[in-house]
């Protein structure tokens, strides 16, 4: 694939793409309804609220009821998209997600925006770093973490075809449109899939969400050093694209995972678990190392928690050492 100039790609927040696409699918499918818990302006469900006001329900600051209402609507044939910040929909309402939605396998689409430390100055209380772990652990749940607006739009559309619940993880900050027409020009994304951005024989970076762009930048650094590095956007944490992950592990023999999430239970956990049972190779995990975030600018926080391209680049060397 062509070498991307990441700094020059248009920037878009995944939450903005979500709001726009929700309107598009809502206009096409009358089963679509949306709910929010007083954060519609932030999650961008407000765009849907303007376009389809009769099908939008603001439940106020009551996330448990948000999930329960969505479950009831789904039990009556609607396809609800329930959104609030990632930590609240997965953490505050965890047991409602489990009992009312996932256990009966209802088609509720849970949308968690402002995930990870790039929420920024709001600090640890608002920075979801365990949401992927929580949602992965729940049976019947599909877990998606798109890297840009293009992937987000496609996954919102494909969520309609998933017969059960979906957790869609979105970010607050703008990210480069790596799949846009000025980027890789890719439009095909679906639950259970992945996007191979680069293939390499020395080591493969498996990333999701905002870390995909960092992974690409890290791979370019390593390519310039003469390494053969793969990059796999593993936007579907569950179901995992096992065959593609396995092929990458066999091709390169070492893996670095990169996520804006705890290294426990998220993408790194999913990859390590899968490869331990199928094709054990060294797996080095980039993410928050069992620590809460804090206030700061998004870029500062990525730097502080060692989530930048240069940190991934260093992890590649660690993976290569383990491989040898």
């Amino acid at each position, binding site marked *: 694939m062509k070498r991307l100039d990441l700094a020059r790609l248009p920037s878009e927040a995944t939450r903005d793409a979500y709001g726009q696409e929700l309107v598009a699918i809502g206009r096409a499918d009358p089963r679509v309804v949306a709910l929010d818990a007083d954060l519609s302006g932030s999650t961008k469900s407000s765009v849907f609220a303007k376009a389809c006001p009769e099908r939008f*329900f603001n439940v106020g600051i*009551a996330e448990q009821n948000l999930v*329960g*209402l969505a*479950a009831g609507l789904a039990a009556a044939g609607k396809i*609800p998209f329930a959104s609030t910040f990632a930590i609240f929909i997965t953490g505050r309402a965890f047991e409602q997600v489990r009992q009312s939605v996932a256990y009966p396998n209802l088609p509720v689409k849970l949308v968690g925006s402002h995930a990870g430390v790039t929420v920024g100055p709001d600090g640890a209380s608002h920075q979801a770093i365990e949401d992927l772990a929580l949602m992965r652990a729940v049976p019947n749940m599909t877990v998606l973490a798109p890297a840009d607006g293009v992937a987000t739009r496609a996954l919102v559309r494909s969520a309609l075809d998933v017969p059960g619940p979906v957790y869609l993880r979105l970010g607050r900050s703008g990210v480069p449109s790596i799949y846009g027409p000025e980027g890789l020009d890719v439009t095909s994304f679906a639950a259970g899939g992945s996007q191979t951005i680069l293939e390499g024989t020395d080591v493969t970076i498996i990333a999701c969400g905002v870390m995909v762009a960092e992974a690409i930048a890290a791979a370019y650094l390593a390519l310039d050093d003469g390494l053969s590095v793969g990059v796999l956007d593993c936007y579907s944490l569950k179901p995992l694209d096992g065959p593609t992950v396995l092929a990458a592990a066999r091709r390169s023999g070492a893996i670095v995972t990169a996520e804006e999430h705890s290294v426990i239970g998220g993408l790194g956990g999913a990859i390590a678990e899968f490869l331990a049972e199928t094709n054990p190779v060294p797996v080095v995990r980039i993410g928050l190392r069992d620590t809460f975030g804090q206030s700061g600018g998004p870029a500062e926080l990525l730097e502080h928690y060692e989530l930048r391209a240069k940190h991934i680049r260093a992890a590649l060397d660690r993976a290569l050492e383990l491989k040898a």
Partner: protein
Amino acid sequence: MTGNHGPAVLGERRIAEIAEIARQIRIEILKMTAAAGSGHPGGSLSAAEILACLYFEIMGLDPANPAWPDRDRFVLSKGHAAPVLYAALALRGYFPREWLATLRQLGSPLQGHPHMRSTPGVEVSTGSLGQGLSMACGLALAAKLDKARWRTYCLLGDGESQEGQVWEAAAAAAHFGLDNLTALLDYNGLQIDGSCADVMGIEPVQERWSAFGWQVCEVDGHSVSELLTALRAASLVRGRPALIVCRTIKGKGVSFMEDQAGWHGKAPSAAELARALVELDAPEVSGGGAA
């Protein structure tokens, strides 16, 4: 099919028929919990008349077609009272009565708490307390969106209303004007650790729900005629949801279970089942209990 458009005044005979159904529901509750060796007879027995009224007189249903889109919906928010729901569904013809003997067994369609994917006629999955009223609100919202005429009924426990989510849902139901929703509170006054008043007071019940914007009335939850009158009145309320506070006795119908918190989550032994069935005037079925 029964519907909620029947005559406003019921004859004594129909009331006696529904009371008889409640007696049969009680018999099945006792038999199935005894056979299972576990379960929640106390809070199931307290709701026998409530379920009998809903399933045999009030709700529009088609047991042969559980997915009939215009059916009325029932949510058992106090999911541990699954035996009373299963008994009503079996007697109403949703599934064979023989299924009741499999309650809580591996592979049974009758899970320990109601699960919509396991049992015909179960509308949502409950068991973790406090969540059912939210789901009932979602169902009622969907009916409003579709301009459909079916109603949603939700049975809450008294102890359950200590859960904060119940009040999130109570506020939402009033805010969205869900006059197609009737909630019933099984107010038997007892929870696992003792009386609700001692564990965590829930009074003043009527004032709390009224303050949240609900139309509230109180009935003797074991009086079929009072329940039917209140349920019909609730369906006529416009602009807001209705709550019927049902004053009940936990373990109702079995002298040694009545008003005893200890029978919240304990199954009767074979001997206790036999004694209970005699009290329910059903000694002939006592052999069909514990295996």
